[in-house]
């Protein structure tokens, strides 16, 4: 019995099943030697021309490069470099249509040749003695060589095979019709190819090297045999012409009788296949030092005047190739990259030649007919006979049409080499291969998705575990005794407390509040609503009490800054309030007067306090830990205080939303925001908060889309400083949202706000504003007949102080309007008309700003009326009108462009709301 090697050496050939004999059409292009092309106007070099990752760019736009200069740095993961095919300037680096059936843009380097074609320094070698495998593989790698037969697999990866290679198979078959690139290359450069083969032999040291060439290329066969004469390890074999014997698996079968297992690679059976073009490139790289920058491309077809093979620089556009060879396009001209069997029609001819482009075929409509109408499968089984992979094409077709992907895999769809033999023989003109390609892409995508889903699941579960752990840790922390704050912080806080005591007799108010809170808590103990959390909450309350006492005791020196003082007070109040909230009781506001040495700060403090209170009400046992540190941090400087306040408010908002009962009025948040304006960062934060609120409002409106009319006025009034304007707008929006929310429930009524407001009107502007506020309140009061809601008494001072300057006045106006609106909403059934609005409005317009305020009020009213008239939908229409009216107003100060931006933001918010109303998730 002869061994396999002996059989091979004796010249035995095997057969693969199936296969077809399409018209060869090779003589069209193999009559003349390989031509060269003029330099194109520009070259388009996609960064990725092979299978694997692309390298890192090494050049910049505008840089001058020499021929052969490396343009990308290969990394890991099968990446290959690309090189400049000629000397010139990089004119652009941008996505350009790629050599892919989709022509999807891909990052490419656009190179404008300078016409000099000047090489960079090349390292030529006369022999490879003394170069080890690694060095050789490195040369191949850095020459950017990828399989030139069609797939574009990085050659260095193949050459670096971990498996022992018994047979090196050189693919010179070129079975596809029309293509003669390898044929001509073998005829003209057989010796170089053999040298390339020898390089591969030295790397892989196979038992035997087989060169397979179809017997329809006698010249190439002769040339190769001649060139390989000196090396008896290289066996040149003429194989019978049959399509697709050039397929890797088919060629291995023919030459070695081995079959590559399903899903495997040739190396699994000890075989490695290289295309002759690739080996030529290897020889050029190793012996001449030339990287892969050009290749032989067959330009053929009936519409080409001089069909022939040409040396095309990589990156030359197909158009350049076609017109260089005399291209006369016909109607509905198709240009195919690759052969007629496996190639793809190009969507455009402005596509570059890449490392895998072996043929550009421009047939007329006679030689390559346009596909006819697909007809029903008649089960003739011709496809199964033609299939070189012994698959069942018609079965696959059924499954592909029915999208039965499991079945497709069962029937080994992925062993299909997409040779197109089945489509070729199909009498019903069914584009079978197309079905398989679609199905393959689909299956691949599904697999990817599956992997992704799996990963998502893992991450989700990991996160869940983490959260649980954190939760547990938090619980444990509650159980432990109170942690004392760092000494420094404590000192500061206590200083502040001390100063408060000394400075103001009202300090007692704080105490009082604390006392009250304690009392309430004591009350609450009896009526705890949430048994689960109550223990923890109590514990914490106790702990806090302790801490407070400790601080008070420690209070020694009389120093510190006012803000700290205020914040500390606020914390105290907040705690008090929280404690009382935890008991599930509605509490009255802790007296802000205590801290009233600076009303603004007081307001901040109050905001924090309220925020906490709400939070506490909602989630008694959660996140308090988080809040407290935040607040404490806040006391360190006013800016932080502002941020903390913002956080507090955000939380409050959350609480308000989730709790959905007892919406409180956050009137004095504004001052805080204003304070924030003191520096841009704060302003930004405030703006962000404002936006957030606006968004919330929009959402809350979902059921009865409400219109935050007052956004425009705010914007209009804004001027001078756009940032402040943004803040003001934000406030307005926030209010609108509040109103929306409050509409559902009975909002609490700030009954006694009026008196305070009355004090305000020191100047006409303020008067107008105050009036607005007053009106709003009056309305509200009227509305809230049913409820005797509690009143945050201290809100007024803060609000009143505000209108110190016109800007603040604007804000106040906005507030007023918001309130008015809320009232209107809450009423819903019996909206009353505040009689006294008109006169006041009339007084107002002494200056444009006031006018704007007045306009806003007017609009607010208009809107209310509209609302009362019913229909949430109509309102959105309203909005548009208001938008248009707001524009002229804002033109009062046309010099300020930023206002426009603000307006745009407002618009966006509205657009979003509308979108939500329509339930179309159409974001942005």
């Amino acid at each position: 019995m002869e061994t396999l090697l002996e059989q091979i050496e004796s010249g035995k050939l095997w057969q693969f099943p199936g296969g077809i004999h399409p018209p060869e059409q090779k003589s069209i292009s193999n009559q003349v030697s390989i031509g060269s092309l003029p330099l194109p106007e520009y070259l388009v070099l996609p960064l990725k021309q092979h299978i694997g990752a692309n390298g890192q760019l090494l050049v910049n736009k505008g840089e001058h490069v020499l021929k052969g200069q490396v343009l990308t740095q290969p990394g890991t993961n099968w990446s290959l470099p690309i090189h400049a095919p000629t000397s010139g300037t990089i004119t652009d680096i941008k996505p350009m249509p790629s050599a892919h059936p989709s022509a999807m843009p891909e990052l490419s380097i656009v190179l404008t040749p300078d016409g000099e074609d000047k090489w960079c320094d090349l390292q030529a070698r006369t022999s490879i003695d003394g170069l080890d495998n690694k060095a050789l593989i490195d040369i191949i790698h850095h020459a950017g060589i990828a399989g030139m037969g069609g797939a574009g697999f990085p050659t260095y990866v193949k050459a670096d095979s971990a498996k022992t290679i018994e047979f090196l198979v050189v693919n010179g078959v070129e079975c596809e019709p029309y293509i003669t690139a390898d044929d001509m290359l073998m005829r003209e450069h057989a010796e170089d190819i053999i040298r390339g083969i020898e390089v591969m032999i030295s790397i892989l040291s196979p038992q035997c090297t087989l060169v397979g060439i179809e017997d329809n290329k006698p010249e190439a066969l002769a040339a190769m045999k001649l060139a390989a004469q000196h090396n008896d390890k290289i066996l040149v074999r003429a194989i019978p012409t049959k399509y697709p014997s050039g397929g890797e698996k088919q060629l291995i079968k023919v030459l070695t009788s081995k079959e590559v297992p399903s899903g495997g690679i040739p190396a699994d059976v000890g075989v490695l296949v290289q295309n002759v073009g690739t080996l030529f490139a290897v020889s050029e790289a190793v012996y001449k030092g030339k990287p892969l920058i050009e290749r032989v491309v067959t330009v053929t077809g009936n519409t080409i005047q001089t069909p022939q093979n040409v040396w095309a620089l990589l990156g030359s556009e197909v158009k350049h190739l076609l017109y260089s060879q005399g291209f006369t396009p016909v109607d509905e001209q198709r240009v195919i990259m690759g052969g007629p069997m496996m190639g793809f029609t190009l969507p455009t001819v402005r596509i570059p030649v890449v490392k895998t482009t072996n043929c550009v075929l421009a047939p007329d409509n006679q030689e390559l007919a346009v596909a006819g109408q697909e007809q029903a499968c008649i089960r003739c089984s011709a496809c199964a006979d033609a299939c070189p992979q012994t698959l069942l094409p018609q079965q696959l077709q059924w499954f592909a049409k029915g999208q039965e992907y499991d079945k497709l895999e069962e029937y080994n769809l992925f062993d299909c080499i997409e040779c197109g033999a089945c489509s070729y023989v199909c009498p019903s003109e069914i584009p079978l291969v197309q079905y398989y390609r679609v199905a393959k892409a689909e299956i691949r995508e599904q697999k990817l998705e599956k992997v992704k889903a799996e990963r998502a699941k893992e991450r989700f579960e990991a996160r869940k575990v983490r959260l649980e752990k954190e939760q547990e840790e938090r619980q444990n922390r509650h159980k432990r005794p109170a942690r004392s704050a760092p000494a420094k912080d404590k000192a500061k806080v206590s200083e502040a407390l001390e100063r408060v005591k000394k400075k103001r007799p009202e300090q007692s108010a704080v105490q009082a509040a604390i006392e009250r809170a304690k009392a309430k808590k004591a009350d609450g103990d009896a009526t705890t609503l949430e048994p689960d959390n109550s223990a923890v909450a109590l514990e914490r309350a106790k702990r806090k009490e302790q801490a407070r006492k400790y601080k008070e005791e420690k209070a020694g020196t009389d120093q510190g800054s006012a803000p700290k003082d205020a914040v500390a007070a606020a914390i105290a109040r907040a705690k008090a309030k929280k404690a009382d909230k935890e008991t599930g009781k509605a509490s009255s506001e802790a007296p802000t007067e205590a801290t009233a040495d600076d009303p603004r700060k007081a307001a901040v403090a109050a905001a924090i306090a309220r925020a906490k209170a709400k939070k506490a009400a909602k989630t008694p046992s959660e996140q308090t830990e988080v809040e407290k540190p935040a607040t404490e941090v806040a006391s360190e400087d006013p800016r932080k205080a502002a941020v903390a306040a913002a956080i507090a408010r955000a939380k409050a908002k959350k609480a308000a939303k989730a709790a959905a009962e007892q919406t409180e009025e956050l009137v004095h948040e504004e001052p805080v925001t204003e304070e924030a304006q003191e520096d841009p960062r704060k302003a930004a934060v405030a703006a962000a908060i404002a936006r957030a609120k606006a968004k919330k409002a929009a959402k809350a409106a979902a059921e009865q889309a409400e219109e935050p009319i007052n956004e425009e006025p705010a914007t209009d009034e804004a001027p001078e400083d756009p940032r402040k304007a943004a803040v003001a707008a934000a406030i307005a929006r926030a209010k609108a949202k509040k109103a929306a929310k409050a509409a559902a429930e009975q909002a609490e009524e700030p009954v006694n706000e009026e008196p305070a407001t009355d004090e305000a009107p020191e100047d006409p502007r303020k008067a107008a504003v105050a009036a607005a506020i007053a009106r709003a309140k009056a309305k509200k009061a009227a509305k809230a007949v049913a409820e005797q809601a509690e009143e945050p008494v201290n809100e007024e001072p803060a609000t009143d102080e505000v209108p110190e300057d016109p800007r603040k006045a604007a804000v106040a106006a906005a507030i007023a309007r918001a309130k008015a609106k809320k009232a209107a909403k809450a009423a819903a059934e019996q909206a009353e008309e505040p009689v006294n609005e008109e006169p006041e409005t009339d007084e107002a317009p002494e200056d444009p700003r006031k006018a704007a305020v007045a306009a806003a009020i007017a609009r607010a009213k208009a809107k209310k009326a509209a609302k009362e008239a019913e229909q949430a939908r109509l309102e959105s229409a309203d909005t548009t009108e208001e938008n248009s009216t707001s524009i002229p107003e804002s033109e009062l100060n046309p010099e300020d462009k930023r206002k426009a931006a603000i307006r745009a933001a407002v618009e966006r918010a509205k657009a979003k709301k509308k979108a939500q109303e329509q339930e179309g998730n159409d974001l942005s």
Partner: protein
Amino acid sequence: MTLLYALIAIGALALVFGLILGYAAIKYRVESNPIVDQVDAILPQTQCGQCGYPGCRPYAEAIANGDDVNKCPPGGEATVKKLADLMGVEAKPLAGGEEAEPIKKVAYIREDECIGCTKCIQACPVDAIVGATRQMHTIIADECTGCDLCVEPCPVDCIDMIPVAETKQSWKWQIDAIPVKQLD
């Protein structure tokens, strides 16, 4: 006596076969996938909560307990169909009336607008958002399941859900794109 022998023989045989069967039952036991796992494997694992359950697994459990199979908008009709097949129920259109073929989306943070509040990080079910307090956040696009959950909590509305761009890898051949027929 003969009767006794017969009984003994048959009894012995029964015992032997019983042992063999018992051994085989243990040795060649087929690990059947519990229904919840099977359902969970079909669900897209976006963990978006659009079904009303806090994640895909809880919904899988609910389905196993008889909940409707048409509550998974990210999965689209295909998932509904698969679930219906598995559960042996009628495939219904999606409960929310969503489109049958959901567009795959990925979250994108407009980074200059991000205020670093970490809210989206807390909301993300798959930890696909990186960032820290008062630092800009960003999305790890590869890990994003497009669940939408981060959009709502964002206080400044700086998160967009953008459709996943088609790449050469995700591009699909169109039937009839290439005429492969050759006329002589």
